[in-house]
């Protein structure tokens, strides 16, 4: 309990100082409230998202180095809990799981019966959600709640999910959230979350500046040992945002995306990219907004019991567009074109925003290092100029 801070004094969106120890208490408070905590963990040389029992499960003291086709972890000089950027997984792993049972069917003497599965609900708390991923969560909620372009449509994330956002203290080389105006600060874009953390680990004093963004978030804050965050501390937060933002160099300039792609469907840059693309689908797997699925119908050996499973799919798969004994998009070129023009272009007409949040995962995790920001630059050059040969430095 916090004697110094009577709970009535806590302000919504007020900034408070939370020590390293206090941060650990955040986990126990969440668990006491019945949440399963999901956050970053180090596993097999990558930082993935999984269940956490305590703050000790976080990759403290680890950082990452990312570039096109490159991901490396490295030890930091400090013990920052969030001193890295994004790994190959995104929150869609839990929000729209890779495999979901849609229904079971039973063929018997009585006929064909369909049965809906019932699974017990699980209250989740996400910790460590970056600004770009908050944008992605919002975009995917919009996709799944119907694609009306009515801006007043409630595309809010379900309120039972408890979210603890984290401001990035550093940017990876592949990050470009500033170009997509989705970050790096979680404050500025109307995102939904309960608490926001900004971490400071470089000095003697490892601490957080924490803000409660919802009444539920405030209620949890009241259980934590907080102190006043003075002006200097709050300024440090702003400086951190600015430094992170300044460090990003990749650009994406697409003022009129539809027209841009619409007039470049046969641009030679697509051929250059297709020469390198393996159609491996990594980009769609790691992309936090990709939503395509397929269904798999299975039966048991008697043929009486069948199940239909909903699974992640990728437009890079050859049979994604299968029709009439062939696929509409046979060539790798056409499939890369579909992915890029959809993500950066037609997504606007479908869902009212870009499909890209600037997280950079597709650039990092492409085995041949294709960079969509470079692709857009290549497409912007007039065909026939040398610069359209898509070059990877």
């Amino acid at each position: 309990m916090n004697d110094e801070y009577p709970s009535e004094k806590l302000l919504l969106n007020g900034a408070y100082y939370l020590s390293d120890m206090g941060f650990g208490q955040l986990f126990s408070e969440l668990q006491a409230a019945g949440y399963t905590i999901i956050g970053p963990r180090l596993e097999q040389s990558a930082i993935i998202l999984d269940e956490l029992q305590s703050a000790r499960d976080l990759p403290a003291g680890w950082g990452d180095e990312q570039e096109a086709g490159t991901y490396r972890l490295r030890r930091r000089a400090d013990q920052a809990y969030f001193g890295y950027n994004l790994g190959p997984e995104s929150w869609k792993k839990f929000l729209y799981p890779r495999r979901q049972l849609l229904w079971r069917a039973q063929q018997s003497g009585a006929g064909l019966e369909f049965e809906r599965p019932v699974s017990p609900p699980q209250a989740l708390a996400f910790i460590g959600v970056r600004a770009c991923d908050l944008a992605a969560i919002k975009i995917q909620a919009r996709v799944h709640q119907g694609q009306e372009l009515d801006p007043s449509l409630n595309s809010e994330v379900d309120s039972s999910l408890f979210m603890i956002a984290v401001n990035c203290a550093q940017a990876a080389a592949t990050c470009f959230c500033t170009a997509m105006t989705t970050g790096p600060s979680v404050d500025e874009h109307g995102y939904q979350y309960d608490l926001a953390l900004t971490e400071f680990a470089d000095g003697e004093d490892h601490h957080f500046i924490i803000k409660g963004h919802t009444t539920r978030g405030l209620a949890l804050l009241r259980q934590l040992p907080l102190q006043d965050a003075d002006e200097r501390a709050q300024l440090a937060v702003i400086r951190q945002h600015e430094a992170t933002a300044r460090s990003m160099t990749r650009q994406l300039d697409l003022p009129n995306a539809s027209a841009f792609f619409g007039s470049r469907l046969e641009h030679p840059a697509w051929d250059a990219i297709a020469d390198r693309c393996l159609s491996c689908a990594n980009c769609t797997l790691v992309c936090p907004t990709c939503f395509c699925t397929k269904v798999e119908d299975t039966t048991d050996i008697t043929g009486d019991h069948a199940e239909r499973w909903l699974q992640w799919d990728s437009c890079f798969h050859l049979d994604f567009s299968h029709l009439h004994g062939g696929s509409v998009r046979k060539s790798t070129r056409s499939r890369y074109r579909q992915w890029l023009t959809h993500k950066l272009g037609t997504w606007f007409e479908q869902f009212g925003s870009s499909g890209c949040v600037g997280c950079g995962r597709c650039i990092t995790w492409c085995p041949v290092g294709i960079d969509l920001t470079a692709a857009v630059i290549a497409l912007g050059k007039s065909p026939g100029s040398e610069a359209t040969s898509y070059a990877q430095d």
Partner: protein
Amino acid sequence: MHKIEDLICIHPFFDGLGQEFCSFVAGCGINRHYEQGQYLAHEGEGAEALMLIRKGKVAVETKVPERGAVIIETLNDGDIAGWSWFFPPYLWAFDLHALTNVSVTALDASCLRAKCEDDPRLGYEVAKRLARMMTERLKNTRLRLLDLYKAPLDLPHRGP
């Protein structure tokens, strides 16, 4: 009973030709009537007339061993039968078979060719119309060659 020149002028092939030209060529023309089952032309015979089909259905046919007389295309009211009369050696490439009673206005080929040579403006009008008709028939033939209604190949793949 209409005059030949009026029948020529109202036929779609000569649509927009102008009374002057219709009268000019009328002298080559004669009305003919075929009974259902009769042949308007036989493959290999002299193509001696441009036939404007006024009414009736005509089959363009060719004899194929073991298949009999195969219909390649059917022509209806307002079509013309063939263009072999315009190009040497002026021989019909296919049979023309009346599927119903057919009324035509037949313009004698040598007469019409002579008038086209005499008056290049008429020649150009006739050539334009023939070319237009042939491109239509060629386009349709090419589309039919694609065999679009054929059942798609059942290639092995995942899913339905």
